[in-house]
């Protein structure tokens, strides 16, 4: 039976296999090679069919692991009655152990990563003082740029232009999320009836701003909740198509939708 693949946010073939096996045990209290192989192959299929496709290097690794898995599964289904292919079986066995060793190593570093993350989070609660010397003392040093290279300068620039956290204090006055969702809703409710249908990518083509993308996504969900649009996605990694169901354009529709948006008000 299908392993739950809708949860997959995996990084490459090894990670996928690791998740499939551990996930299957959680779901079924036992693991079955057959269903893992099936899920694995199904995922590769979807990746190949997805619009981004698979790059060759990644695909090779996926296929190598898949080949080993299929071989293992075949052996299981068709145990060799003669027993005269012992050499090949031993070879397969070694492949299996190699794969197992890689999975264990992969899992080990995932565990380390968790610890690193918790340390980073704990340390992130404190902010170090980086103000440095005040101007009185800068005057006595001859080589203020000592040790600073062109790359450091470029990094400093990147740091300076990195989007800054929104100061929370401003939220007391403007509640920007509510405003933006309403705004996005209004715009969608006005444009979608004319477009009929559009992909989410098209609906966000004019912005690079992550917050804006999230806001529009919330707006789309809101329309979906109100039964004004239909969402369709052909494959897991495919485009999300938003189709208007709300009939012709009218002010009533917009008002209705905007009324719904009030629920975002915190």
């Amino acid at each position, binding site marked *: 039976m*299908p*392993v*739950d*693949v*809708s*949860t997959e*946010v995996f990084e490459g073939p090894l990670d996928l296999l690791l998740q499939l096996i551990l996930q299957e045990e959680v779901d079924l209290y036992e693991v079955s090679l057959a269903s893992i192989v*099936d*899920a694995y*192959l*199904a*995922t590769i299929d979807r990746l190949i069919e997805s619009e981004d496709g698979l790059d060759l290097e990644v695909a090779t690794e996926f296929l190598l692991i898949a080949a080993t898995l299929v071989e293992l599964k075949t052996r299981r289904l068709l145990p060799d009655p003669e027993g005269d292919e012992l050499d090949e079986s031993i070879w397969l066995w070694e492949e299996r152990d190699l794969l197992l060793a890689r999975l264990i190593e992969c899992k080990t570093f995932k565990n380390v990563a968790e610890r690193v993350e918790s340390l980073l989070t704990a340390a992130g609660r404190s*902010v*170090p*003082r*980086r*103000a*440095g*010397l*005040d*101007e*009185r*003392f*800068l*005057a*006595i*040093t001859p*080589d*203020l*740029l*000592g*040790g*600073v*290279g*062109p*790359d*450091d*300068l*470029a990094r*400093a*620039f*990147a*740091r*300076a*232009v*990195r*989007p*800054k956290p929104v100061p929370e*204090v401003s939220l007391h006055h403007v509640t920007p999320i509510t405003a933006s969702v309403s705004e996005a809703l209004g715009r969608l409710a006005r444009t979608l009836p004319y477009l009929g249908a559009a992909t989410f990518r098209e609906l966000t083509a004019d912005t690079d701003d*992550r917050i804006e993308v*999230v806001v529009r*996504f919330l707006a789309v*969900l809101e329309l*979906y909740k109100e039964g004004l649009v239909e*969402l369709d*996605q052909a*494959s*897991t*990694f495919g485009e*999300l198509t938003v189709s208007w169901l709300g009939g012709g354009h009218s002010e009533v529709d917009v008002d209705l939708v905007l009324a719904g948006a009030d629920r975002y008000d915190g």
Partner: protein
Amino acid sequence: MTEVPPSGDELLDDGDELRRAIEAIVLVSDEPVPSELLAQLLEVSVPRIDEICGQLALDYEASGRGFQLARVAGGYRYQSHPDQEQWIERYVLEGRSAKLSAAGLETLAIVAYKQPISRAQVSAIRGVNVDGVMRTLQNRGYLIEVGRDPGPGQAVLYGTSQRFLEELGVDSLDDLPPLASFMPDSETVDTLERGLRTSIDADLDAEAGDGPTS
């Protein structure tokens, strides 16, 4: 968690909570923090901020700390105590080459890549007042005035100096590395996008009843 001092026998009062927050904010700031900003952040009046900061400065002095809370350019900042100057000089001269603060380096980087640029424009990018930092960089000979904005206001425009190029060890501004490879990556965006996809999938699955299973 706000904790009670280990052996303390009275709770920190409201003033103590404010004091602690002010200490934390001013400590991590690389510019003097205006009273008005502190008042806004901590949701108390400006006179209350000034009262607590004044008391705090006296406390540090009375307990013989090696630093001070000083009022500079309309804001508060920590600085080393004047009577510790000899040690600071020793640290600067012997300990290692003194460096620009992170704020100084970022400001310099913005001017280097965006020149000619006005103070207000640099300030808009960094999100803080940069008057002090710009003045320091100018005094050090890294920044020079290169003209005036033709628009209304005629703001002074700044650029980097020859000296800056020399100390950085490059021949000309053209030798500065291209920014593309240093810009914030799309990793975060990707993660977010994947998160969205996952939740869309979940919704669709729930709706359709037979989502994309294997």
